[in-house]
């Protein structure tokens, strides 16, 4: 894009795509905004009327909202920490030459191909079930009381399940980054007297900064909208202990048939997601430059 002419041509040529995407986004968004200002309950059809910000007031003052906000941030943060730390560790391991490397790499990637509902059910029924679950059997085998994960630590359990699903993604991206590191740099630092820890901190980690940024940004987008895992395991409970914003919007609009309130919640979720995005870009966006 060197000349003014080619820049104009480029803008002209991408404009259809931009317009299509804009329309794609703007239509549902405006409808949601429109509904959020209505009193609109599916149980009372034909009674829609404009009520201003009332839906927002109800949604934002609901104690469930603050619980859900905290849960959303904990869920996103917890999964990010586990997948980045675990992914880096796994990538370092998989980068070592060992026998059966190819098969192990495929095994590591496998969880990513399991549907969220299926994996959540497997975790719920086969691992975390306090009577029949594998963890319960293990606990009994060493003489401990079985722990009912989903009842007593619902959010932590969901974080564990979601982290298990996203670990392969993080591992894969971080492994590619690791493999693109110039071996001569590592050898140079070895000659410069850097031990394994120093090489990791001063050479490997800065090299992986961009890949880590990509993992954080992409995962955050998906983790803000975790839903299936909550629906099939805890239904947001007990109480609101494992309800995130996405699940709260669902509960509001479909369990209580309140389309107006649900829409207001949806708009709040969009705004929150944007706030998170701005924070993230401020904090780590510079890693993506150059």
């Amino acid at each position, binding site marked *: 894009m060197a000349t003014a002419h080619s820049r104009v041509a480029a803008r002209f040529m991408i404009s259809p795509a931009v317009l299509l995407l804009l329309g794609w986004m703007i239509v549902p968004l405006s409808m949601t905004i429109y509904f959020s200002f209505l009193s609109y309950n599916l149980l009372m059809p034909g009674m829609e009327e404009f009520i201003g910000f009332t839906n927002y007031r109800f949604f934002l003052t609901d104690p469930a909202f603050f619980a859900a906000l905290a849960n959303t941030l904990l869920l996103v943060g917890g999964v990010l920490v586990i997948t980045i730390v675990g992914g880096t560790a796994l990538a370092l391991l998989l980068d070592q030459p060992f026998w059966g490397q190819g098969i192990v790499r495929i095994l590591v990637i496998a969880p990513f191909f399991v549907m969220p509902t299926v994996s959540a059910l497997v975790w719920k029924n086969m691992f975390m079930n306090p009577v029949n679950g594998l963890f319960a059997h293990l606990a009994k085998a060493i003489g401990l009381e079985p722990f009912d994960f989903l009842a007593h630590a619902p959010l932590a359990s969901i974080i564990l399940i979601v982290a298990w699903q996203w670990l392969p993604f993080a591992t894969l991206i971080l492994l590619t980054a690791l493999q693109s590191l*110039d071996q*001569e*740099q590592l*050898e*140079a*630092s*070895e*000659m*410069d*007297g*850097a031990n394994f820890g*120093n090489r990791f901190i*001063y*050479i490997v980690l*800065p*090299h992986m*900064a961009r890949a880590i940024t990509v993992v954080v940004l992409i995962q955050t987008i998906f983790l803000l909208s975790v839903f299936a895992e909550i629906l099939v395991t805890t239904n947001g409970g007990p109480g609101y202990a494992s309800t995130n914003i996405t699940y709260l919007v669902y509960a509001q609009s479909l369990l209580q048939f309140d389309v107006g309130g649900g829409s207001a919640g949806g708009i709040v979720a969009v705004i929150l997601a944007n706030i998170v995005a701005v924070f993230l870009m401020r904090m780590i966006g510079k890693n993506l430059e*150059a």
Partner: protein
Amino acid sequence: MGKISLKNVTKAFGEAMVIPSLDLEIEDGEFVVFVGPSGCGKSTLLRLIAGLEDVTSGVIEIDGRDATEVPPARRGLAMVFQSYALYPHMSVRKNIAFPLKMAKMDAAEQERRVTSAAKILNLTDYLDRRPGQLSGGQRQRVAIGRAIVREPAAFLFDEPLSNLDAALRVNMRLEISELHQSLATTMIYVTHDQVEAMTMADKIVVLHAGRIEQVGSPLDLYRSPANRFVAGFIGSPKMNFISGAEAGKHGAHTIGIRPEHLALSTTEGAWQGKVAVAEHLGSDTFLYVNVNGMDPLTVRTQGEAGIHHGDTVYISPDAEHLHRFDASGKTI
């Protein structure tokens, strides 16, 4: 101090024997050049000395101490890589200071050493830039800077100039030679370019397929090559080799004569031939001459010879500079 000796060192990668048993002594303060064609094991040998590869068998001594099992960082050697291997996310200052930081040197001393290295290498104005913002020659200097701040017992260079353009290469060659004069530290320099070897070395080690063909001063190798390989490798343009009846007259399997030791005449001489190509360099003229019953001969004459493609010329070898080789390639 930087006296390095290799005793019966061998190196194999799996089945492939890259360096069959090799002995070498490098004296303190010497500028030693490993030269040889690509793939002959120069880098491998350098990496063995650096400790980046383990020897398959044999002993490496540094200053009389057995260093075979000593890890690279503790051998007291500094290496400049062909790709420079600078740390891209650190400023030039941090790059140069990295080995000092790893040695936990105090900040004031680090700063003093970085500043003085930057002054020697003309990098003072670039200390706060990233390697990505530097030219090839400047990156090269940063890599050298990172090596000299450690005040190592010896410097190891692996083809450090091969990524630079021709003019810069000549400059950096001089700078490295000057650095060696002022530091008087042992330097081991790997190159496939015999011109670099001839111009920089105190001692040249000619390698071929992992074996040492000859060790000696540049002029030793030029005047009395031990075998046909060294004779052909050292000197530019390459030595002419003649075998068959002409060599038989001198009691040898093959005779060799350098292009600059062939006398050229348009009227009379030992061999008559036709000029295929004439390269006029101004200071010299290189002629490629087809002589009946021999491979084409290269002739070097001083100045402008006034001879062109297709001319008939007569060539006579200077008997004093004739090299004779037996059937196995050894000098007789």
